[in-house]
């Protein structure tokens, strides 16, 4: 039962190596746990499903499928998918440790709570990265068949990165809630409640008050405007955190171009028997600014949620 203790002392003097090994042990612990949960297979299947819907939808809806060389790099996961990915990946990462009591043997190992928290966070990032890589690869291949040859595929990592950041708002929120409540069901209820309220409330506000910039400060689609490129093509743009990936791609494809935000007054114009909605230009923002603001807001949410979760984890008493 003995082994060389000297070796151990020598190594612990190299603090960073030792910390990294322990950190990677937590990541390994979490990854094995994650990958073997049936939910992981569910996440991958879900990625294929939502991508397939996006690809097949034009066939169902349309007669003529427009060729779109930028489909792959301007494909962003929708709000619900972003939330669901985050939910499945992060909802019980913290809480189930408390619920099952496995937190006790874990925290009595020489790993600090900060290391455990960072390890779990990193593992969630890896799982999200894998899921989104699967999603975007599949979408890219599929879009070549559906929308014809794809160009500027070098921007795929940008859209991938943007989508990961968007989903990470929910991941960090779920980690924080899971740590505070120590209860998976409660975490899901709170997160879903928040998501649904935002998902329903923001579009209503948007219709009533127009595409206010205030909308962009909540996680979601934000204000909707129209991007007009140099060659006069028009794209609908959502300025919120959910469309971060696509907006970053637009900012790179059409640098310096503006997005116009209109207020639609549904009751205003009367032409004969018909009532036509009137469009009033409210304001204009550059696409670069929109992408940057989205990134800053998303990162701010992530940092705040993670700080809350980390502090809660540092402070918690282990009664399990």
């Amino acid at each position, binding site marked *: *039962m*003995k*082994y*060389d*203790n000297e*070796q*151990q002392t020598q*190594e*612990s003097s190299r603090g960073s190596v*030792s910390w990294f*090994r*322990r950190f*990677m*042990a*937590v990541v*390994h*612990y979490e990854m*094995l*746990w994650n990958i*073997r*949960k049936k939910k992981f297979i569910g996440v991958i299947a879900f990625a294929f499903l939502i991508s397939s819907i996006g690809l097949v939808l034009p066939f169902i809806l349309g007669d003529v499928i427009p060729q779109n060389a930028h489909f792959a790099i301007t494909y962003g996961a929708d709000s619900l998918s972003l939330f669901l990915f985050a939910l499945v990946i992060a909802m019980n990462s913290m809480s189930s440790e408390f619920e*099952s*009591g*496995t937190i*006790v*043997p874990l*925290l*009595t*190992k*020489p*790993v*600090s*709570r900060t*290391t455990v928290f960072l390890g779990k966070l990193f593992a969630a990032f890896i799982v999200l990265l894998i899921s989104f890589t699967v999603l975007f690869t599949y979408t890219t291949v599929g879009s070549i068949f559906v929308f014809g040859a794809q160009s500027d595929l070098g921007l795929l990592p940008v859209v991938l990165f943007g989508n990961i950041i968007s989903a990470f708002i929910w991941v960090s929120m779920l980690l924080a809630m899971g740590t505070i409540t120590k209860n998976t069901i409660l975490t899901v209820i709170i997160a879903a409640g928040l998501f649904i309220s935002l998902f329903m409330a923001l579009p209503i506000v948007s219709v009533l008050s127009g595409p206010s910039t205030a909308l962009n400060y909540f996680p979601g689609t934000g204000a909707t405007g129209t991007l007009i490129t140099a060659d006069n093509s028009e794209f609908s743009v959502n300025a919120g955190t959910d469309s971060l990936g696509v907006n970053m791609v637009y900012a790179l494809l059409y640098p310096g171009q503006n997005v116009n935000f209109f207020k639609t007054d549904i009751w205003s114009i009367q032409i004969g028997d018909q009532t036509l909605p009137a469009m009033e230009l409210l304001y204009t923002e550059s696409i670069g600014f929109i992408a940057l603001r989205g990134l800053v807001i998303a990162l701010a949410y992530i940092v705040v949620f993670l700080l809350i979760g980390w502090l809660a984890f*540092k402070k918690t*008493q*282990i*009664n399990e």
Partner: protein
Amino acid sequence: MDYAIETDSLTKNYGGLIAVNNLNLKVQKNSIHGFLGPNGAGKTTTLKMLMGLLKPSKGSAKVLGREVHVDDANSRLKIGYMPELPKFPKHLKCIELLDIYGKMYNMTKQQRAEQIPKLINLVGLKGREKDYIGKYSKGMQQRIGIAQALLNNPELVILDEPSIGLDPVGMVEVRELIKEIAKDGRTVFLSSHLLFEVEQICDHVTIINKGSVLASDTVQTVSSMFIGPALIHLEIANLTNDVIFAVEKLPFVKKIYHEGIKLTVQVTSHDADVKVKVSKEITNAGGVIVGMSQKTSTLEDVFIQLIGGARTQ
């Protein structure tokens, strides 16, 4: 004196309930120290404070000479801890879990490759180590609990009710194992509510009830602390004065009474060899012993006296 564990007025309140009350505990290095108390006495709460899982409401603790703080990772490098009824992730195999824990203890690949199979063998999980923990029985999880507490070759092993949930053979094995662990100069601190367990394997014991220490010393001292001197009852076929004088002369004999063939010897020592010495003297003096019995106090007597006393107060 350098202690493995030393607490100073360690206290934990849960609302109005005082789970641990001004506990001053001293565990000597290189001893097997039992932490004995009935359900709800505050054993687990104390151990959790020693491991930095719970923050004391008051007081402090030193483990292996180092002040305990909540979440001091490096202080745990030399401690092995087995929680009460430990639970491990169901989705991991036993061998994977031990390997990951080994990495957390900063063990090299080679150290892990040597230590893990040994431990799996030691706790009797050989052949099942590649099964998912979700398929393990309660007793098997308990055995992982013991294995993971020994992984880092710790200086101090803290075990919270190590034999609970084990079958009789398993209990005996674990007791033997604990004695074995302590041989390499390690300190073992184990909580239990099983008196015979503590009596069999520990050299020191602390008895706790309602969060307070009632007694703390060597098992022998605690056992003899509360019941007066031990009595040896003898029946001797030919009880002559020679026999009586011979017994009286023994240094540890305090008093003797005799009536007919019955001889009662009150001794001051609780050593097992007292009986042997007395019977030898009698035989040498020509007495023929036809019956002999001894009433010595056990830890159980002390425990029941202490706890019973506390309950009726």
